[in-house]
């Protein structure tokens, strides 16, 4: 399965890229984040993030589908 990733803030800086396409066997966002954290050395644990799938807030346990766009959302500070 192939998914699109966009990175923001700390995740973008730590990954060194703003987006990427990955081939993965991760079934859920939780599994996908564990895989990417190991690869990029992300300092943030999944507990401090939210996840968005296809431009909507999603669930860590939802089933990923080929072609999904996934964003892991670091703690925010608008305003």
């Amino acid at each position: 399965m192939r998914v699109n990733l966009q990175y923001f803030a700390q995740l973008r800086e730590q990954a060194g890229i703003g987006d990427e396409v990955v081939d993965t066997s991760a079934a859920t966002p939780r599994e996908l984040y564990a895989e990417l954290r190991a690869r990029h050395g992300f300092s943030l644990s999944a507990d401090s993030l939210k996840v968005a799938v296809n431009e909507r807030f999603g669930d860590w346990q939802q089933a990923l589908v080929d072609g999904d766009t996934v964003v892991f959302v670091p703690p925010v500070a608008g305003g």
Partner: protein
Amino acid sequence: MTHFQLTAAPVDLAAQRAALRDPRSGGFCAFEGWVRDENEGRAVSGLEYEAYAPLAISEGERILDEAMQRYGVTAASAVHRVGDLKVGDLAVWIGVSAPHRDEAFRACRYIIDEIKQRLPIWKKEHYLDGDTAWVACTHIGHAHAGHSHAHEPAAR
């Protein structure tokens, strides 16, 4: 009327306000967030805002809709800057018009509180000493269903 915008350009305050005028409205409340010269004791030189735009806009519109329904206001809008800002610059503008002042104040306060908690927008502070840090108001959640404030250290 509800409208949430992200912009890399300075905000046209007169135009924002004019869009909320309505003969049924007797009260208008606006809030502006300005870049302050210090945060938690550190001298700040400026900030940069980064946004996940499509989700920030849809969530911003949702917050404005919620405020309209909860408080019965006539009109509400908000605009948030992205990119580099310096001390004194306007980071966010919110305006609400309503028949009476109580609804206008409460809706305006609701919108800024929710914006700070829920929008996928990130703020990196630049300090006078050359250091920088990503600042977190909170994990994403509902501001009006309990607060949690965290200061996320810089990840460099």
